[in-house]
């Protein structure tokens, strides 16, 4: 039996009819067409499906859609402002932290949550925060560099007086 739910995704409310056993990842991808959320393993091992729920990174493949009601969900589609990339996204591009890109949405969202909590992380902090997100291409080095670069960029931006921005 389908249940009627309201999901708040990237600040938009969606009324949806979903089966109880359907994951948030599947609803995002197949009902809302937000295919930026990737599905790698479907069992919590790879982190490709990471989204933020009230700012906390979770694997959307192991969260039932009916259990995601009442949370503010942020997917990769909600990170850039229009065509202006978020500093974390910019750093991923500039440093070369993206190869096939399958892990990138999850990595970016996890990095966002980390920098929100800890704006000046050490390399070890970054590696720990990303330890549930697997990448088959980059060897992680550039991803870690990108997050550290983004942290520096964001702190610089913060420090600048308003007019100079």
């Amino acid at each position: 039996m389908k249940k009627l739910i309201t999901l708040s995704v990237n600040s938009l409310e969606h009324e949806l009819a979903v089966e109880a056993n359907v994951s948030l990842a599947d609803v995002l991808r197949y009902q809302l067409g937000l295919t930026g959320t990737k599905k790698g393993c479907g069992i919590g091992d790879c982190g490709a499906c990471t989204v933020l729920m009230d700012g906390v990174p979770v694997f959307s493949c192991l969260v039932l859609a009916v259990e995601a009601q009442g949370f503010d969900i942020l997917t990769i589609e909600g990170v850039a402002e229009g065509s202006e990339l978020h500093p974390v996204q910019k750093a991923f591009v500039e440093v070369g932290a993206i190869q096939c890109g399958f892990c990138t949405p999850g990595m970016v969202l996890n990095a966002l949550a980390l920098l929100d909590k800890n704006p000046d992380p050490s390399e070890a902090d970054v590696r720990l925060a990303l330890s549930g997100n697997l990448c088959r291409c980059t060897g992680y080095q550039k991803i870690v560099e990108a997050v550290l670069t983004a942290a520096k960029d964001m702190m610089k931006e913060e420090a600048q007086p308003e007019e100079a921005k």
Partner: protein
Amino acid sequence: MSIPPFEVLQPESLQEACELLGKHSSEGAAVLAGGTDILVDIRRPIIPEHLPRCSGCDPKTLMPRKAVEKPPAYMVALSRIPDLSGISEAKNGDISIGSMTTITQICESQLVREKLTALAEGGDNLGSPLVRNRGTLGGNICNARPAADALVPSVALGAQLELQSVNETRIVSVSDFVTGPGRTIRKADEVLSKVIFPALPEMSGSSCIKLANRKALEISVVNVAAVLTLDKAGKISQAKVALGSVAPTPVLAEKAAASLIGEKPSDDLFKEAGKTAAGECKPITDHRGSALYRVDMVGILVKNALQKALERAR
């Protein structure tokens, strides 16, 4: 791989949750906490050798996911019930942790880090940040895996479980609760509401060490938790050692703990206790490590865990 069909019920009180569990028990009803175990376990295994997610269970005879031939028809979610998560300290020093408290909340609690260090250290090593953000203490305990990273320190810390059913509240010790891999004495209509950690005396310290093939997303080869209390003269007055991944349930190494009581702590004493603990477990060989290796590692990890607990007790 999709999740097999079931209905989700989302009660708003503990009483209602127990009633629903009782009402639907004949069709199969399971508690849904964070879902990080159950939403994986109810699927058909993809690669049998990868399962179960624990050392200690024999992959041939005790495959938990094979046992789940029929997924439950109902999932009773605890997420809407208020007051099931949170950490508080009673006047007598007992620390009570709601069953829906996530592993991340436990690891980030100053109170837990200071007074239940072994539990915080066990949590630090559980899965990955994504697992810890969803997985709960109640789920880790009720899932009853011999390697479970929050269960093993809970055994060493003498945790008491409050089980709530329609007509009754009962308190059982975590060691009595777990009877085998994935097996507990929980009745069909019972919900674990909170976990109570009895206050430790002054001059106590605890620690938990996990040996695994990788730092994240890995189940232990062996995990060990130790708790020590010193008396005024600096001798050991209380000791507990719990071993994970070396038997169908976490094991209290009672002989090893007894050998410490009344003694002055020393490296030699801890080394001997490690040897004794190694004799108290019967691990299996699987793809994570051989039985022989595990026994050897128990000896070393028990010594190291006791040393760390001692530093904190002083």
